């Protein structure tokens, strides 16, 4: 956490938006892949098992194809699976810099688990060829990998979903609170079911489209794959809106704005379109709609991750705003210094301007307004520019019969200028008839400071 925050520059508002965008992109790359991995691995294992029970070449072949699709080679695993995860801590680390109880470690901790899971599944893929010999090892690898992957991914997901619920952060040291949470559970179920549906789409897409129709020469396998894929996809499509609804429903109230709800609804609508596509694929004798369904699914993932990121941003909008204002004030500070220098060179009196612009709202020299007459209070700051400056920068309540002086929000340069101006006024004859004459020029100020 600390070592991270050292490497993080305090972001501005635009910066935060950029981060949010980045997060969505990351998820768009990452989530569908993991979903596909989980889905295809699970389905492949089921197929292999049934084939083992009652030999069925179609099953075996489809299982092989699925493993090829989902678990691919090592490279996509690294690029799509591992690297995007690595990005997450940095994105959120920057977004939430300085937020109290920010549970970054929960985002970091599960990552190794996920990697391990992926690795195991990799081994599972390798052992596919020789499964006849060492069937049980093969299945064990698959199951183990799947469990590790899903388990640690659940943890990761819950950590991220928790960012939408800052009111619970201070409780997160309690793991039950972290994991046993309806919102997260629904989200994960939604994710997994999308995964299986996506696998269905993937079968249509990769097996029947990607490699081109010619790759699948025998019509029987083609028909089987089509029916299986579309059926699988369709079946799981129906689960999606249910979990989506529950997820939206259990999200804390703070995350919402109208867009978030629309996104939630959009996910459901999109799934409906996909469902129709699957139905069409089932009916038409031809293996079609593979590309459509698959790309639409990617879109679904985009929508739902946008939902999450936006929720996160809504829930923490004060945090964002604070960062913004902080950056803003620093900018002002810099500008003010420049302005002061310019003013000095132009011979204008910054202090007087500030006084007339800001202080005059509540203060007069000799009569009482909201605040006390300055003539009475300034005396105790005689020759104490810094003291007055400090007071102006962060005022404290002194005189009970006045409301406390609010922070005028001046830059330190302005404050200094105004302090010098006022003390100058004090030094000058009370009538303050010819202030200009009395105002010290910057050079004098320099010397004056030296003097005390």
């Amino acid at each position, binding site marked *: 956490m600390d070592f991270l925050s050292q490497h993080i520059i305090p972001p501005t508002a635009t910066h935060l938006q950029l981060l949010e965008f980045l997060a969505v992109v990351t998820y768009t790359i990452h989530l569908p892949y993991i979903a596909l991995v989980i889905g295809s691995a699970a389905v492949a294992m089921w197929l292999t098992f049934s084939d083992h029970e009652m030999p069925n070449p179609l099953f075996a072949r489809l299982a092989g194809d699925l493993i090829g699709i989902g678990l691919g080679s090592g490279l996509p695993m690294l690029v799509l699976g591992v690297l995007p995860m690595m990005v997450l801590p940095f994105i959120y680390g920057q977004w939430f810099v300085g937020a109290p109880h920010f549970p970054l470690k929960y985002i970091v901790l599960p990552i190794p688990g996920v990697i391990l899971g992926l690795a195991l599944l990799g081994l599972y893929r390798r052992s596919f060829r020789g499964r006849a010999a060492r069937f049980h090892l093969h299945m064990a690898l698959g199951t183990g990998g799947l469990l590790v992957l899903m388990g640690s991914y659940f943890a990761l997901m819950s950590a991220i979903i928790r960012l939408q619920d800052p009111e619970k952060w201070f*409780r997160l040291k309690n793991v*039950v*609170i972290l994991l*046993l949470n309806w919102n997260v559970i629904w989200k994960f179920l939604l994710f997994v079911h999308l995964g299986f549906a996506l696998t269905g789409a993937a079968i249509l897409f990769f097996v029947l489209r990607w490699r081109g129709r010619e790759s699948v020469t025998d019509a029987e396998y083609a028909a089987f794959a089509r029916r299986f894929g579309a059926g699988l996809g369709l079946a799981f499509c129906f689960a999606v809106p249910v979990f989506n609804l529950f997820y939206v429903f259990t999200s804390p109230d703070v995350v919402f704005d109208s867009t978030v709800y629309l996104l939630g609804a959009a996910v459901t609508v999109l799934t409906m379109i996909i469902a129709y596509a699957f139905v069409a694929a089932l009916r038409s004798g031809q293996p079609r709609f593979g590309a459509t369904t698959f790309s639409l699914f990617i879109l679904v993932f985009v929508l739902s991750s946008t939902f999450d990121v936006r929720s996160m941003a809504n829930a923490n909008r004060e945090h964002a705003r604070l960062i913004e204002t902080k950056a803003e004030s620093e900018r002002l500070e810099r500008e003010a210094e420049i302005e002061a220098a310019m003013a000095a060179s132009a011979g204008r009196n910054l202090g007087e301007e500030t006084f007339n612009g800001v202080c005059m709202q509540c203060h007069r020299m000799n009569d009482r307004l909201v605040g006390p007459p300055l003539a009475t209070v300034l005396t105790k700051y005689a020759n104490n520019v810094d003291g007055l400056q400090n007071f102006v920068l962060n005022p404290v309540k002194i005189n009970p019969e006045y409301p406390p002086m609010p922070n005028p929000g001046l830059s330190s340069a302005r404050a200094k200028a105004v302090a010098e101006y006022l003390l100058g006024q004090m030094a000058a004859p009370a009538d303050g008839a010819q202030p200009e004459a009395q105002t010290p020029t910057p050079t004098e100020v320099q010397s004056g400071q030296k003097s005390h």
Partner: protein
Amino acid sequence: MTHKTAPVPAAAGHPASEARLQIERDVISAMQKPGLAYWALVGFCAMVFVVCLLGAWAWQIYKGIGVGGQQNPVGWGIYIVNFVFWVGIAHSGTLISAVLFLFRSKFRASFNRAAEAMTVIAVMCAGMYPLIHLGRAWYFFWLLPYPNQRLLWTNFKSPLEWDVFAVSTYLTISVVFFYVGLIPDFAIVKRYTKGFSRHVYSALSLGWVGSKRQWRNYNMLYALLAGFAAPLVLSVHSVVSWDFAMGLVPGWHTTIFAPYFVAGAIFSGCAMVLTLCIPMRKIQKLERVMPIDHFEKLAKTMLFTSMIVGYAYIVEFLLAYYSGNVYEFGIFADRATGHYKYQYWGMVFCNMIVPLPLFIKRLRRSLAYLFITSIFVNIGMWLERFVIIITSLSKEFVPYAWGTYRPQPVEISITIGTFAFFFMMFLLFAKFLPVVAITEKKEEVH
């Protein structure tokens, strides 16, 4: 849905296989497309269920539980009576299927399917009542121990909480048991049907082909389930009895309740099986698969349990007397002589007197007589629960707080509603599922 019956495959010459086919045909033909009258009956039950139960319940939730007759001091009315009654009914199912299966007693095969179906349905009915009975039914889920951050948990000291588990366990086990028993039969039924229903049945049969391996696993599983289910026969109704025995209400607070209730449950259960099976046998022409002497065995069981129950009635009276405890004896004296004396003596008559003639073999074998007896016993057992629950509450410790309870229209209508539900479900069962375990019946033939 409708069944298009496919031509029955021609019988092989072998007499045994001939007999087996005969059984198959009998059972399957019982599943013929139901007639209009049948549908009308089902429809009527459904309507009564919707109006009398759901409607009345809606009204009750809207107005408040006060539309019932419960009051101070009688906080529990006939809702709980019905609850106990239905749980009792549910018992014979497990008894007949599980226990008799373990004892390898043959006559079970004629009834177990019907009994199990009855169990499942009866438990559903029973399960409704604790909810109906709640003052704030919409918070029923507070009775389930689910994790939450309010640090609120259910009170496992409370017998009501035990009920939640007892009933849900019982429902689960009996449903699983019922279904597993059906799997091979589904496979058979599948062969006789066409079209959509064929798809359904084949899906339900989970790809049963009757291979050696399947049968091996199947028998193993079935025996195991029977093993699980058998203890439930004792446990579930004992737990239900503790709802009362654990309270210190005079008339409830006694140790004999558990065995007493279990016996009563089996008693009422057998009675209900008779009530259902006798007409079913007639209507669906199952005389061949449901021989009389099986009914006779059932009658014997009933007679036996009736005597246990009768014994309990007498014993608790004597206990109350010997306790010398004014509250305890006060209740029993009041039962026999007080405001609810008719219910009490009605109960004694139906449960102790009516079954006695079953000692005579001829009566045991006369279905008509058995039917009538079973009806009486059902009524009697309902009254028993009424007497136990309501009289005990109406005259407790503090004389100032004595009061009498009278069921109100809403309660009665809801009661009727559950009976309608029960019969509706059973009628559907009788037409859409094989009402007798075909495969087991076949095993009988050698």
